[in-house]
């Protein structure tokens, strides 16, 4: 660094000055954008528990077991329930939580071209309601992930604006650990001084929350940098998917009926899921989507048992129950497994409520760290920046006008070291 020699010449303490530079980088990293980053952290924190918020707000979205809770409904029973309650509707997909406090959902299409999502009790089959037109969960995700900006042509601009803040966040983490000498001692002797002043309290909080959040901040910022890369790759048509071209049911398998009034001989959903579960005993079907046309497959999916971050899915021929495509963990490349894990790692949605609450807690800490950083900065960094600038000025042009070349607000900003 060209500046280190000049500061060294003055002070004779190069290490201390290098630390000072690190410290200034740390201090400046988020400050000019703190309000935006604060908003992203806050909405992200809410987004981790948005499903639970809907659960609290809307009783129809809950899966209350009856007194004598029997087995969960099978997919065919769910289809029957929907056909009875909404005879005009056509089911597009069903998502059945394997074991959860949430009602199962069926996405259905109506003759007036609308699609809606029904909440169905997984034990009793009662259609408890439908998801409201304002989908809070989707809204918070959109607000957090891309500022609700449109996706008309490739990735949303909002997506880039949000994900690029991961870069200063990661730099903040690294520089923070560099300047916080022997930060590991903070684990053994945590310090939160309530009795000095606000700056000291915010500072103590910032350091304490920071060291306990090292893994969380690393996960959030690295996964977000992946989101940034993902946008760039997709927008430039770079793909490393091993999925290949979409497959269709062979024409020979699709029956030709003698008259149009005959019912096409589709196998039932339970037959299709049974075929998958027979072929793969460790597969737990939790969602199914209906064939999108006469040459399309049943797509049956479920969370991988061996690697719960990812979902696996299997395409089943709807006429003969043959499994014609599998996308299981063993079918994925390492790159697909790693990049596919980024989103679940970012949202914390792969264990259940417990992990979501952990993410929520650290999300609040991170949001408060952005705020406390701003509070500390506005009280202290002015002064430190001015000090370094002053040292350079002395070296470069040692003249008497020095004082007037430095922002005087910084010099005057009172508060002793």
């Amino acid at each position: 660094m060209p500046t280190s020699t000049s500061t060294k010449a003055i002070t004779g303490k190069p290490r201390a000055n290098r630390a000072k530079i690190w410290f200034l980088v740390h201090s400046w990293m988020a400050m000019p954008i703190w309000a935006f980053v604060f908003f992203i952290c806050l909405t992200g924190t809410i987004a981790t528990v948005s499903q639970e918020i809907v659960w609290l707000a809307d009783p129809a979205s809950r899966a209350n077991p009856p007194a004598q809770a029997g087995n969960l409904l099978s997919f065919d029973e769910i289809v029957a329930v929907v056909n009875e309650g909404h005879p005009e509707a056509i089911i597009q997909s069903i998502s059945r939580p394997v074991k959860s406090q949430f009602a199962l959902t069926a996405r259905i299409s109506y003759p007036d071209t609308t699609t809606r999502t029904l909440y169905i009790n997984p034990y009793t089959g009662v259609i408890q309601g439908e998801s409201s037109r304002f989908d809070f969960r989707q809204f918070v995700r959109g607000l957090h992930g891309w500022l609700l900006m449109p996706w008309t042509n490739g990735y949303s601009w909002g997506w880039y604006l949000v994900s690029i803040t991961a870069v200063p966040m990661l730099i903040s983490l690294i520089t923070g650990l560099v300047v916080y000498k022997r930060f590991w001692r903070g684990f053994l002797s945590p310090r939160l001084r309530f009795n000095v002043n606000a700056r000291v309290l915010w500072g103590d909080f910032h350091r304490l929350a920071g060291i306990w959040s090292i893994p969380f901040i690393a996960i959030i910022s690295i996964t977000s940098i992946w989101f940034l890369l993902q946008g760039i790759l997709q927008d430039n048509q770079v793909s490393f998917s091993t999925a290949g071209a979409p497959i269709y049911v062979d024409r020979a398998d699709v029956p030709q009926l003698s008259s149009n009034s005959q019912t096409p001989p589709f196998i039932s959903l339970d037959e299709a899921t049974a075929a998958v579960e027979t072929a793969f005993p460790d597969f737990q079907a939790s969602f199914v989507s209906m064939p999108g046309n006469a040459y399309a497959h049943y797509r049956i999916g479920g969370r991988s048992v061996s690697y719960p971050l990812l979902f696996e899915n299997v395409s089943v021929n709807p006429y003969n129950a043959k499994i014609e495509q599998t996308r299981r963990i063993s079918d994925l490349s390492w790159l697909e497994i790693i990049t596919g894990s980024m989103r679940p790692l970012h949202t914390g949605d792969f264990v259940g409520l417990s992990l979501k609450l952990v993410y929520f807690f650290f999300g609040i800490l991170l949001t408060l760290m952005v705020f406390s950083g701003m509070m500390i900065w506005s009280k202290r960094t002015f002064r430190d920046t001015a000090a370094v600038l002053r040292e350079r000025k002395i070296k470069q042009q040692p003249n008497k006008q020095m004082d007037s070349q430095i922002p005087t607000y910084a010099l005057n900003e009172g508060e002793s070291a």
Partner: protein
Amino acid sequence: MSQPRASQPRHRKSLWFRWRFHLSGLLLILPMVAMPFYFDDLAMSRGEKGLGERDLGQHQVGPWQIQLAEWDTNPPWRDGVASYMKTFSLSLCESCIPEVKAAYMRIGKPRNLRTAGAISFGTPYRQFISMPITESATADADIWLTLEGWDGSVHQISMPLADASPSAATFIQRRNH
């Protein structure tokens, strides 16, 4: 640059000085401005604003009546390296639902059922066909919609691309120039 000391208190109290590091909060204007469009898009995708952004009316295809729409009026969207796509939406009349096996669409007349073009996806009430804008397509071409019945019967209609999607016709015109 160097200011007399006397002016500095005024400088320190200026709005710019006090607010400059909170200005990134102004980025939150973006979601506020985008919100009505966000809800519009959402209503569109839930089918609450009709079959598509631009209705192309009812059409009789052999024995079957269908409604057709241009899903959005944007220029064709890019699909991978391969090509650009234009998406249409269609719905089948109540009585044709059990009879129609599949719907296909392409630019230019297909030679047979196997070259009928992109197949539709969705439910009989609302299905989508994303039709590739082929390299050889011209702006004055026709689009051909082919319906296949479960009994093997095939019925077709055609209409000028410029009527079905003015934005796609404009796109092709620009590309071919």
